[in-house]
């Protein structure tokens, strides 16, 4: 009886520890309607690339693989990853990001179920198709791209 209780206490402790580690193991932050503007100001005078993806988007996986390799080669590459899934899908998103070695780079997830407004806060002309990417120049003029990002496309904007 006593050992049973001890065992269940130990199991509970282990489960608790596992859960807290899982919650801390990623670098995903919630994206609200004002977040994207803040992110941009963090890159003032600097170029950067935004890649939008979702756990339900197959072509996005191809793009994530490319971005994973890119970050491996060039850890300083200025990349922001935004998942359009709601934050409840965080575990699934982390699982996917880990698959491509992208779990530790700056990452955001849609924090509100009102996705139309969050999309609008990123780009009013975007219809929601994925993957979607943005190339911001140093002066923050930008070009948008719908569909899988290719290495050529990346090189166009960031020639080596």
């Amino acid at each position: 009886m006593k050992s049973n209780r001890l065992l269940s206490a130990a199991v509970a402790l282990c489960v608790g520890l596992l859960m807290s580690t899982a919650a801390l193991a990623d670098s995903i932050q919630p994206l609200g309607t004002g977040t994207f503007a803040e992110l941009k100001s963090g890159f003032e005078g600097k170029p950067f690339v935004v890649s939008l993806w979702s756990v339900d988007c197959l072509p996005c996986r191809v793009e994530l693989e490319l971005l994973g390799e890119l970050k491996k080669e060039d850890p300083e590459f200025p990349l922001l990853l935004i998942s359009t899934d709601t934050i409840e899908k965080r575990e699934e998103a982390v699982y996917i990001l880990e698959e491509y070695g992208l779990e530790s780079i700056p990452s955001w997830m849609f924090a509100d179920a009102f996705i139309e407004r969050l999309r609008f806060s990123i780009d009013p002309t975007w219809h929601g198709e994925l993957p979607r990417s943005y190339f911001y120049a140093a002066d923050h003029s930008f070009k948008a791209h719908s569909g899988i990002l290719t290495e050529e496309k990346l090189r166009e904007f960031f020639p080596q």
Partner: protein
Amino acid sequence: MPTCLMISNRMKWLLSVAITMLLTMLLWSIDATAAESCQSLRERSAGQQVISIHCGGAPSATVDADGRLWAAFVQDKHVYVTRSDDNGGTYTTPVRVNSEPEDTEYNGENRPKILVAEDGTVLLSWTTKTSPNFTGEIRFTRSTDVGKTFEPPRTMNDDGLMTGHRFDSLFLTASGKLYLTWIDKRDLDASAARGETYPGAAIYYTVSDDLGETFTPNFRVSHNSCECCRIAMAPHGDDEVAILWRQIYDEHIRDHAIAVLGEQGDVSGLTRATVDDWFIDACPHHGPTMVQAAQPGQYHISWFSDGNLHSGIHYGRHDMATGTTENIIQVDGTPGAGHPYLARYDNTLYMVWKGFNGMASHLQLMRSQDDGATWSAPQTLFNTEQASDHPLLVTAPHGVFLSWSSEEFGYLFTEISSDEKQ
């Protein structure tokens, strides 16, 4: 001290019984409440779980031969069915359909489907995710006791493969043939095993002529469909259906195809329905809508594209005989506008869709009295500054109803055909 403890324990017990009774009464009364937001239901439930159509994910609805509304929704990995005998004023206590929890998909493009046959058999299909890598199974069940109990769900894809089978659509013809169609990745897997490339997925279907007791083997409709858009269905003759889906052309163009499905697996009239030239290797998550036109073999279709030829929501009339879509009209080209849904009732065509102005979503409606040749100016039915589902239309014996779920209003089932003359 021990006596005091005993009394307090007994009091606690009595109190908890009283609270449980109160909550049960409260929950019962909540089920019988008309459309209201899930948030207000939750506030009134004092922290108890609320199973309600106003809280459930991606509801869909149908109206039976007696004019009663039936709706299906997903909550906590279960599909639930509820009924309303007063056009959505009050709802019965939701019945849990699958006793074992399943990772049931529910979103704008992929939700449980519900139909009720003339004899009262309740028919349901949905997609269950089996991994985070786009695999899923097409599930089907039915109730033969007026929705009181449901048979254990069956998997309808017959390949036994751990691959993608998703985005199911269900249709019952007037003659009682039940068609279930979906997006399937078995051919993609087979091509990959041979080291060949295979753009997109495929469309498959199965048919039942005994209201879901038995089904035919799976039949393929087409290779190279888009992977992530709902399939539209409409009747074709007495026993067949026409389906409209997003199809990949020239490996990178995602426009639409239409075909007629027969009950023995015979696919005819497969042709391109839209030429939008949308070059995109991406998931639009944006499926079409279709209803039969007055002229046999003609269909009213509406779809979204951001192609070189058509951008925004468009409407057109497709003729199966000539294989052409004519009378193409841009419905709404503003950014953020999408997810059209068509219905036809009493020679009037109805189209609803969602617009967005940067702050609020607008639920838009327009009508046509001349089979789609001309349309009324769009009318805004609702505005909301909170999240909302895609709008659906349900055609009942007594009118056309909007079926729409939103954070602000809960689930709305509202007639849109009553104020035609306004």
